[in-house]
């Protein structure tokens, strides 16, 4: 489970995240949607422990910067950054050893096959295309079988097969009881699988809706999104 309480992140004079509060339960896929510059990536980076922040973030009950929390989450960055001089296989071996994953080889093989990287095992990080780098990031994040997965614009740069595979993986993670947080500015890309939508604007969560709420009230998520991001009054409340 992921719990974010009062998350605030300030860069000099810019308030990138302004008192964010939300939680993602086990078996739930939350999507953080918002226009460019809304503060989605900053929030994800704060949760991943890459940035300093004010507030509290707990991963499976542990503060996000503790070893216990790190053991429980996987992170797929917005811009993939493979290690230039390690091969694809070595990336997975590195993650397995760093996270102390026992019997990792079969898991690694399965992930590589699903992402169609199995024939690229001996390719160096710097030889991979942007899309392949992103696929490798996904494999690395999922190898330790995390209970919380953080994805920052994960579909950008992927080919259609990888997009389909990643969407299947996300629903599988949900079935396994994983809490998944996906940040994106493309509403269409997450339409099929979201359980909770956090609409962000100007560093704040402007509205929170669950799929059940939307379905019961007949509200249109896309209309809500545009009414918030394009400034119209809609009464969208943050919960």
């Amino acid at each position, binding site marked *: 489970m992921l719990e974010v309480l009062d998350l605030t992140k300030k860069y000099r004079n810019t308030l990138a995240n302004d008192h964010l509060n939300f939680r993602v339960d086990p078996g739930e896929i939350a999507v953080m949607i918002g226009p460019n510059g809304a503060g989605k990536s900053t929030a994800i980076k704060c949760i991943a*422990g890459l940035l300093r922040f004010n507030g509290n973030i707990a991963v499976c009950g542990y503060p996000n910067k503790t070893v216990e929390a790190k053991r429980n989450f996987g992170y797929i960055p917005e811009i993939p*950054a493979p290690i230039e001089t390690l091969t694809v*296989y070595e990336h997975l071996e590195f993650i397995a050893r760093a996270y102390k994953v026992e019997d990792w080889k079969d898991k690694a093989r399965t992930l590589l096959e699903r992402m169609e990287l199995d024939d690229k095992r001996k390719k160096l990080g710097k030889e991979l295309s942007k899309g392949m780098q992103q696929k490798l990031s996904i494999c690395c994040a999922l190898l330790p079988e995390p209970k919380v997965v953080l994805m920052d614009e994960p579909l950008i740069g992927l080919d259609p097969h990888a997009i389909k595979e990643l969407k299947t993986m996300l629903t599988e993670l949900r079935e396994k009881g994983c809490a998944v947080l996906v940040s994106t500015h493309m509403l269409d890309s997450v339409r099929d699988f979201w359980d909770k939508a956090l609409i962000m604007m100007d560093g704040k969560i402007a509205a929170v809706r669950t799929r059940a709420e939307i379905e019961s009230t007949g509200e249109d998520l896309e209309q809500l999104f545009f009414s918030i991001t394009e400034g119209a009054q809609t009464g969208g409340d943050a919960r």
Partner: protein
Amino acid sequence: MKAILYLIRKEIKNAVIDLLHHPARLILYLFLAAMLGLSLLNGTEREVREPGSYPDIGILHGVYFAILFLITVPSVLSGLKSGATFFRMSDVNFLFVSPISPKKILAYGLVKQMASSIFMMIFLMFYAGMAINLFGITVWQMVALVAGIALIVFTIQLITLLVYSYSSGRPERTGWIKTVLYAEIGMMVAFTLSNFWFHGANQQSLFAALASPYLEFAPVIGWIKGMVFAIMNGDTVRAAVFAALNAAVVAGSVLLFAKSNSDYYEDVLQTTESTFELKQAVKDGKTAGVRGMNTQPRRVTDTGIWHGWGASVFFFKHIREMKRKNRIPFLRGTSIVLLAINVILAFVLRAISGGARDDGMPSGLILVIALSMSSYIQFFFNAAGDWTLELMKPYIYLVPEKPFAKLFWASLTTLLTPVVDGVIIFAVLGVMLRANPVTALVCMLLYASMGFIYTAGNVLSQRIFGQLVNKGLLMFAYMLMLIVLLLPGAGISLALYLLVENIPLTLLGLPVFISNVLVSIGIFAACRNMLSSAEMNS
């Protein structure tokens, strides 16, 4: 043309406004300007010594010639391969696609390049005080020297552009340009060696060769050197001749380039893109990007990290990466280059100070000079150590291990590299110079300890100034911090030197070694939780 003038005007205006909006940067520039002023003032108010008490002016000729040579040759050689540029990506994106004439855009590029050459000249003036005091030259003579360097940077950039445009995709042209370049180098080397042949291989004949007016007839390098020293000596006719020759080269290159190749965009595009990526990497502190562009890893034959569990895998990952770049871990190309520089330095110092005779330079002193120079060079190598590069990737922050364990294992190769380099360099120099083994050993220890203090200083600056966005300021703060960290050891050694009579030179090094090691351990202990509060540089 109106659009370009508007662009220049706006760029200048916005740069000034931006500076006013960043008081820290403004203070830094004012501080640097004050330092420069002081340095020049110090130069003008120096006491005038007896003419014979200054070092041979031939040394200045030699050093200056070497600087011009080192700016020119690699630049032209790289230009043959990948071209040159004085355009930025924004010029490519906005100007190249605009309906402005390519020739006007070229003129704009030239003006900007000239401005940046002048700007570089200002920074070179920081060495003014030292040169003025050392050689007894005036401030204006120093200005002439620096202006010559700025001029060669500008001229060479232009020639490189022309050379690339002329030779791109035509191996036979590349071949003959290389032949011309090597012939010029060969003639200069042959001239210097012939002086050795006729007057003996000693200091005087080396300086006489380098200060010789004949060498000044070598195109561009010689002309600019000749012009600068003619100005310094008040020989206006000679200065005018060399200035005219250089002006002809500049004008000819511009004309040839613009006339023969109005479609030059493609020629500069690749280099502009690479330069942009390089600058972006440096701006972001991503030296990995810089390194990635310049090094070609070995072909992958086997794959696997094989060792490490938890935090220690960072160390073994670094070893695997080292093996991929060089066959033997820790023995990098830079280690070999550093060794070669030291061997050449020792050879030259020994040769010009009278060989291995009793009145020649003592081997201990040569080792100390080599140590100082190697430690200075190590500063730049260390800045791109495995540890620094690890901070640019998310893994060091994400891996579920204690921050100190990650800090230790991730910096271990950076700490061990200078140990290996130090042992190799000073073992080879010690044998070559038949130096006292204890002196060589102390040099190894000191060199390794300098590596420790550089790494520790880096950790500390990340801990204190990790949030600092301006990388220039971060570097400045890092250098100031290093001076402070080195003070305890240097202070104790100085006190020992002043208090104990006839203390052996080797003993003076030990307090520095002990202090560096203790300070480094202290910093690692104090910053053990640094990774918990650090922010990834992205």
